[in-house]
């Protein structure tokens, strides 16, 4: 199965550096979440990977070959970049037949791909009448035409209904379990965290994190938020036992520790409490923590 490597990948548009010296390896058999805020450089990176944008420096390769050097690329890589890349007057099946013909694939794979994404019933309909969700599914069908070893998906959940999102999640996991390399770019962090097993975060075109999801969230801190009319007393008590805590509201203390430590301190000191909530930071917190750290550095 294909390994994908980015080496010193850089793109400048005039004075703007969209992607800055990215070095990465995407591994087969995993779903990698490629995360970043809007404008972070995700789409430009994926387009350089797929030969649509020429890098200013560096290279992106599939098993050592650039996308343009792949023989029959549709058999190696399937990509979903935009849900609007269709001629509105063309029928769904014809759109896929054109791509299958150009990609050297049997025309009957068009029908099979439509079935896989649940669009078989709409095969003869013109794409101009499709909803955004249907267009996303059609774009995915185009990516699957050649049964490629690599799937590159830019914001694939956009426009999908909850059922579609769940279907996509199951689908991507199944593809990775078959050994495929799946790259999913997204800004929907909560959604991605349910699908990916590896995370790459970029910010302002620079690599911020490249680690398994479990590793990233394991490093995450746990906090306890307590609502109490004796917040000031609780703050003093927690400080006395070496817990990092602060007042985060008039009657609210947030402590960087576990609920049992806070609970014990409350019980031993007879502090009145109106509410207590334990919170483990998730991918979203990790993301914002990492990107804000990067921003404060630059």
């Amino acid at each position: 199965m294909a390994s994908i490597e980015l080496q010193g990948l850089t793109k400048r548009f005039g004075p703007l550096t969209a992607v800055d010296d990215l070095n990465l390896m995407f591994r087969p058999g995993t779903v990698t979440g490629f995360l970043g805020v809007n404008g972070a450089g995700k789409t430009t990176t994926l387009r350089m990977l797929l030969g649509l944008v020429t890098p200013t420096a560096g290279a992106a390769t599939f098993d050592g070959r650039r996308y343009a050097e792949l023989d029959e690329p549709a058999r190696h890589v399937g990509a979903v970049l935009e849900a609007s890349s269709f001629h509105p007057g063309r029928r769904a099946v014809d759109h896929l037949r054109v791509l299958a013909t150009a990609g050297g694939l049997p025309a009957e794979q068009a029908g099979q791909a439509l079935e896989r994404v649940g669009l078989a019933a709409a095969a003869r309909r013109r794409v101009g009448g499709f909803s955004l969700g249907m267009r996303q599914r059609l774009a995915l069908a185009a990516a699957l035409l050649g049964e490629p070893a690599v799937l590159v998906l830019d914001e694939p959940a956009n426009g999908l209904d909850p059922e579609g999102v769940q279907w996509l999640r199951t689908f991507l996991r199944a593809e990775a379990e078959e050994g495929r390399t799946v790259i999913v770019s997204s800004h929907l962090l909560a959604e991605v965290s349910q699908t990916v097993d590896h995370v790459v975060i970029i910010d302002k075109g620079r690599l911020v994190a490249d680690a398994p999801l479990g590793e990233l969230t394991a490093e995450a801190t746990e906090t306890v938020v307590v609502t109490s009319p004796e917040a000031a007393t609780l703050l003093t008590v927690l400080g006395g036992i070496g817990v990092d805590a602060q007042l985060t509201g008039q009657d609210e203390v947030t402590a960087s520790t576990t609920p049992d430590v806070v609970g014990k301190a409350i019980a031993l000191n007879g502090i009145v409490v109106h509410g207590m909530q334990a919170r483990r930071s998730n991918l979203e917190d990790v993301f914002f923590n990492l990107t804000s750290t990067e921003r404060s550095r630059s």
Partner: protein
Amino acid sequence: MKRLLRAELLKQRTAPAFLLAFAAVPVLAGLVTFATCSLAGRQGNDPLGPDSLLHAIGAPASVLTTLALLLGVVGMAGEYRHGTIIPTLLSVPRRGDLLVAKMAAHALTGASMAVVTLAVSLAIAVPWLMSAGVEVHVSAEVVRAAGALVASTALYGALGACAGALFRNQTAAVGVVLVWLLKGEDLLAGALARWWSIGDWLPFALGEGLVRAGAGTPARWAAALAFIGHLAGLAAVGAGVVARRDVT
């Protein structure tokens, strides 16, 4: 290359607007031939005679070649309008191959349009002339004119694809090509007339000269070679632009 050509032809066959334009060809050819025959001998036109068949064949040339040209422009620049350039380039990452396939497909389509036009023109003009008592003789010049119509329409189709490659915006592409066709060449020829007489050697004048060769215009073979030269030059520029353009 063969599969890219098949894919491009399939694109044309599955786009309703393109099919509509192709369906308009026999209608337009019929109207122009009908007008040519019915206006003969009136409003200063020559009466029906031995050369009328030649005139009937050449009459739809301007409409036909312009249509082939614009279909070529839209076929290439339209990829950016609809965003289909992304799946197209993912299937065909070698961009030079894509442009060559588009040129070939539009040349074939142009040639097909010309064949349909000839069939319609002959189907109307031959019975018309015979009923008017004109002896219909398929001379060598008639055969040459018919061949030139097919060749020039094919070349216009390919030229349109090359011109379309220079633009991201389909409307701008069509506008610039039409302005060049209607005014640009005349203005350029006029501006340069003091030093060089190049009016007959500019692309669209050559295309016209291919079909309606006559005294004072370049010979057909010379016009064809010069037109192919323009086409090759524009194809090289178009390939360079397409290869360097970022699809963002």
